[in-house]
């Protein structure tokens, strides 16, 4: 019987003197293949190329485009979308989607305004409460997704309506006028202030957006938590078995997204001056942020892409809007082209995914 055991591995004797070679491919690496591989390694390269190309084209078409004023205006206009895009990126990286980002931003801004003017709470405290409320709304999303296991699309489709409706009901659709805020609670408008080096106006909001993108890029790339966000989006079961607390990470991601939305709400007060429950961000914010995320090369299937790509995506939208306006075309062309860009971006994402090592 034990002889059975001894001869069991007998076939392995054939290994003696075996060659160490492994299968190698001697394919011609075409330029296209190498491009595909490079794009696979650097996911934010595609939006960067598109951005640079767009800037060059518009620069040639319109002599005024390269003025500092134009560029600073573009940055100003994408400040809110950029911050909402940070929130959206986090959620999309976990293979989710957050349709409620705009609603959370608007409701948070309304809460900040109403707390100050209705209850007479000092503005800084009201802001802190507004940020906390936004975080709580995000937490609710996360809890429903991670604990009750509802699809993120459904959860946030619901909370989008709920939050927006709550926003109208609570505020009685009342707008707080800009002049009143400037007189009584200027802290609410903080991000609307600007510095003007050489006559070019740069809003604090722009610095905030860049800082948030930088912080988030660091967190996602260089901390364990950031790696866990990617792992959860990539393959949640594998991440769980490998020792990631996936549900906790998911709830944290949605809560943090809510916090970012509330920041965007605060920035909205600075940008628009007034606090309005019917700000267009409530309806358009989610679409704009998803557009920035998709054009920025973050995969909707999760786990791939970078926050810097999202930033480029937001910039591309801003450059298109501004450039086409300066060239003097019908503004509908902007949406026409952005629509094309979205489809192109996802097509490129699919193509890149086929790349081998």
């Amino acid at each position, binding site marked *: 019987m034990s002889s*059975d055991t001894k001869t069991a591995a007998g076939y392995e004797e054939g290994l003696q003197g075996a060659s160490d070679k492994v299968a190698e491919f001697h394919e011609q690496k075409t330029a296209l293949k190498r491009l595909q591989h490079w794009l696979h390694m650097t996911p934010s390269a595609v939006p960067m190329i598109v951005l640079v190309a767009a800037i060059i084209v518009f620069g040639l078409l319109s002599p005024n485009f390269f003025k500092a004023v134009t560029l600073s205006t573009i940055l100003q206009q994408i400040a809110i979308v950029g911050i909402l895009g940070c929130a959206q990126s986090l959620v999309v990286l976990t293979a989710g989607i957050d349709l409620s980002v705009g609603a959370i931003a608007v409701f948070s801004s309304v809460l900040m305004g109403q707390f100050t003017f209705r209850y007479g709470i000092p503005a800084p405290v009201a802001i802190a409460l507004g940020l906390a409320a936004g975080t709580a709304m995000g937490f609710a999303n996360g809890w429903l997704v991670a604990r009750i296991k509802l699809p993120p699309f459904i959860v946030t489709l619901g909370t989008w309506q709920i939050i927006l409706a709550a926003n109208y009901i609570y505020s009685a659709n009342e707008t707080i006028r800009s002049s009143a805020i400037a007189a009584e609670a200027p802290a609410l408008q903080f991000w609307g202030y600007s510095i003007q080096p050489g006559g070019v106006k740069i809003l604090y909001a722009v610095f905030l957006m860049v800082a948030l993108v930088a912080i988030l890029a660091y967190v996602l790339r260089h*901390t*364990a938590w950031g790696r866990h966000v990617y792992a959860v989006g990539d*393959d949640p*079961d594998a991440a769980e*078995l490998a020792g990631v607390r996936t549900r906790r990470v998911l709830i944290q991601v949605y809560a943090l997204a809510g916090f970012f939305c509330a920041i965007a709400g605060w920035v909205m007060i600075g940008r628009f001056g007034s606090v309005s429950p019917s700000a267009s961000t409530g309806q358009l914010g989610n679409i704009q942020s998803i557009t920035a995320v998709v054009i920025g090369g973050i995969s909707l299937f999760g786990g791939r892409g970078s926050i810097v790509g999202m930033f480029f995506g937001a910039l591309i939208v801003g450059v298109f809007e501004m450039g086409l306006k300066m060239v003097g075309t019908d503004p509908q062309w902007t949406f026409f082209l952005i629509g094309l860009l979205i489809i192109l971006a996802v097509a490129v994402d699919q193509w890149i995914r086929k790349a081998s090592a």
Partner: protein
Amino acid sequence: MDQKGIGMNANISGEPLLKARGLVKRYGKVTALDHCDFDLMPGEILAVIGDNGAGKSSLIKALSGAVQPDEGEITLEGKPVRFASPLDARGYGIECVYQTLAMSPALSIADNMFMGRELRKPGIMGKWLRKLDRPAMEKFAREKLTELGLMTIQNINQAVETLSGGQRQGVAVARAAAFGSKVVILDEPTAALGVKESRRVLELIRDVRSRGIPIILISHNMPHVFEVADRIHIHRLGRRLCVIRPDDYSMSDAVAFMTGAKVPDEVATAA
């Protein structure tokens, strides 16, 4: 890692290191574990064999914290333990290589090896900014892969999805072997490997045992099981049918036991 001075010769007698009694796990109407017992002695290689659907995977998942049994208790070194998650079990020094390998395809080899136990930079960067110590993690990962000698990987920052099936399995085995301080569980570790790579994994299994760490090996490969195992736990219909020594029985006996074609003597007399 944590080197215990247990030494080369496996102490098969005495108190089990990891023990389970009366484990029950139901999935709806399916009973995957039916009052199952389990014993792992210090320093041994215990093979677990059984037919498909016998509940081997459920047993292993219960022991590694991936599922929580409905009933029964698990003791580690005589102390009752409850694993709420794989992370929990890992905290006790139990490492597992799952059949699915549990790797994040888009992340690098080093990222995957340290998933859930990342190293942070010393000083302010690590403490306050929580910056990962990439160089240290990469160095460690490279050392472990070289130790295993399993693969020809040039770049430790390669995404796992760019590796072949065998290489992926190698990385998963290296991860478990590197971090397991009490028990290493291997679920079909040679399933995707070639002859040469399988041999390396078997050598690695012996190597881990020589460090005094017992191993649970789940495999369908009878020659491998009979070659390395000290004892063989035969699983049938959600419970332990018997435990045999590879010297006492032949491979065909073992296969007959696990498929129900034959009943082992001690079970027959007991019944």
